[in-house]
């Protein structure tokens, strides 16, 4: 092999990488929190909402799940200005992440809710709670607990998918890699380093979600 790896550039470019990591984390965090909230809302509407609302949510979910994230991103960033909504690349990226995860989370959460025994709902209602109150206090937490692993996986997928936001000049981790390689022509090294960082982020994210799960969901203490 004639190619010799050279990582000297790190000394000069590490701020770009750190910024990239932070932005990737921001996108994942905002996408994760707001996206899951949106998913919960959509799941509720899809299960209990009025027919027209159900249709709108259904169309949204199908549209998002069956088209590439990149195209969605382009429409938000380049398309919305035509309608008078001009978003910065970070806002656009964040919104695209939320919209994307929201659709997937909706389906995952809906499945979790549907797996809730009917008796839980009836018990809530027969204690004079409204449907919304029953959903909020009785159905939601156990449903989330049921689908938490699936949701965590989806979040990792979305985090990795966020790489394409570099196309609209959002300065995430992939942007950092591309920026560095465009200056230094050290493509292998830049991609290798960013891949490793993604791997670490994915593992950390999974662990964090597991830890969060332990915090949110009660577990029986051993008898």
């Amino acid at each position, binding site marked *: 092999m004639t190619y010799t790896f050279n990582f000297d550039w790190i000394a000069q470019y590490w701020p770009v990488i750190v910024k990239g990591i932070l932005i990737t984390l921001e996108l994942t965090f905002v996408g994760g929190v707001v996206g899951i909230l949106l998913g919960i809302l959509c799941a509720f509407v899809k299960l209990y909402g009025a027919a027209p609302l159900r249709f709108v949510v259904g169309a949204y979910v199908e549209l998002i799940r069956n088209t590439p994230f990149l195209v969605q991103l382009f429409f938000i960033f*380049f398309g919305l200005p035509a309608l008078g909504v001009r978003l910065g690349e970070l806002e656009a990226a964040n919104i695209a992440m939320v919209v994307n995860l929201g659709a997937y989370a909706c389906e995952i959460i809906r499945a979790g809710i549907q797996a809730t025994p009917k008796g839980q709902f009836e018990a809530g209602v027969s204690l004079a709670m409204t449907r919304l109150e029953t959903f909020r206090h009785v159905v939601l937490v156990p449903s989330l607990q049921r689908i938490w692993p699936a949701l965590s996986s989806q979040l990792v997928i979305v985090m990795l998918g966020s790489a394409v936001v570099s196309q609209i000049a959002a300065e995430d981790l992939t942007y950092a890699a591309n920026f560095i390689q465009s200056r230094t022509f050290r493509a292998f090294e830049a991609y290798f380093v960013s891949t490793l960082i993604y791997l670490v982020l994915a593992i950390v994210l999974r662990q964090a979600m597991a830890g969060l799960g332990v915090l949110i969901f009660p577990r029986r203490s051993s008898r």
Partner: protein
Amino acid sequence: GQHAAAAGLDAVEQRGTLRVAVPQDFPPFGSVGTDMTPQGYDIDMAKLIADKIGVKLELVPVTSANRIPYLQTDKVDLVISSLGKNAEREAVIDFSDAYAPFYNGVFGPKDSGVSKPEDLSGKTVGVTRGSVEDLELSKIAPSDATLKRYEDNNGTISAFLSDQVDVVATGNVVAAAILAKNPPRKPEPLFLIKNSPCYVGMSKNEPKLMEKVNAIVAEAKKDGSLDAISEKWLGVKLPEDI
């Protein structure tokens, strides 16, 4: 080493084909026709070099992200992809003599009040990441100008047209092509950055190949064939300083 012996000019002649990385997303240097075949300044340049060496030409369409890895892993012999030069890049690959002018400048609405680099202060500038103008503008732009670096030319132009950036830095031919389409937002020339020419890229330490390419470029300048290419794609003759 061994590897080098099998590469370079000898390998090209032995193989009978010259493999060249060309852009597909950077008109007028490289784009496609309605039949998706590559066309543009860089493609004609590649044809010229292959002709002169006397071998067949194999065009390999590349992006800005993968053009150098193609070269480094010996999947192409030359990169003719409107490459600009800087010191860091020269540490990794070798550059021939310049084969094309690249007049780049900053373009934007007339009323943007920009007429020199200092005026970019506080403005948002769209530019294609890794392009010649990216390298140049990064050097001269004031520190409080925001550079938005898009993946490809299309991103940069779309960003300008959709009002995501105040002005763009790009080739004057690119700007002219857009102006010709009479868009709602017009990229009028504001100021010229400089003529920062394009070079042919090749693996390091291929003296024979370098010599050959430089000779072909020099001859093409002399016999007017490069002028012809320039006129075809850029609408003007090759400038004196190339």
